[in-house]
């Protein structure tokens, strides 16, 4: 469980914030143009990893998340990749596909860090034979 959480934090690091900037939210409220709304959801990498996952596995993750309310799709994706021993290969793919990574992550993210990302991959690669 700790490992899932740590990988989750790695994947959340440096996600692009797609919500309206706070200063613009404040301007909109002060000028009366904005309406009170629910707080925006935190940035998610689900769309990013889902784009690199087989549809069969996405359906399985949907089912897992539906059964267990404590397990969201992001963590369910990590759990499935760990159980299949494919997490390292996913990270290898992240290293190659910089364009897709750049769409979802800032240049200050761990997934765009060309020095640290190979280290993360090597660490996860050690798990491939133990799943």
């Amino acid at each position: 469980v700790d490992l899932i959480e740590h990988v989750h934090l790695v994947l959340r690091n440096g996600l692009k914030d797609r919500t309206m900037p706070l200063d613009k939210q404040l301007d909109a409220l002060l000028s009366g143009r904005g309406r009170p709304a629910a707080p925006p959801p935190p940035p998610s990498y689900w769309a990013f990893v889902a784009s690199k996952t087989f549809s069969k596995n996405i359906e399985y993750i949907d089912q897992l998340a539906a059964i267990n309310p404590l397990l969201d799709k992001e963590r369910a994706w990590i759990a499935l990749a760990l159980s299949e021993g494919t997490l390292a290969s996913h990270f290898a793919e992240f290293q190659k596909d910089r364009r897709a990574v750049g769409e979802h992550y800032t240049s200050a993210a761990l997934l765009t860090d060309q020095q640290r990302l190979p280290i993360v991959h090597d660490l996860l690669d050690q798990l491939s034979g133990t799943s």
Partner: protein
Amino acid sequence: VAVEADRRAVCQYVSLFFSLPTLNRRERPSTEETEADGIEKQKLVDTLSVSIEGILPSSQQTQQQQQQQQYNNRYFCETNWTMQQPRLPHDVHQGRRGLD
């Protein structure tokens, strides 16, 4: 309905007020990597490393135990095989000589 809308508006103002200190950080250009970013990333890598190391020794220990068990089994078989084998002619000859 109006009271509820006012209540939500107040909550939103308060929420935004407490979020103001983070405005500068959010507006920072995404191309810039600060020292804090580097420290945070290194911390993530270190934490992940510790987490994985915590898992690996158990599996390696299991493998080591399996190897030890295989060695024990082989040693047991080889020992018993030697004991159950008939004596070689050379040994028998030596034995007879000893008896003689």
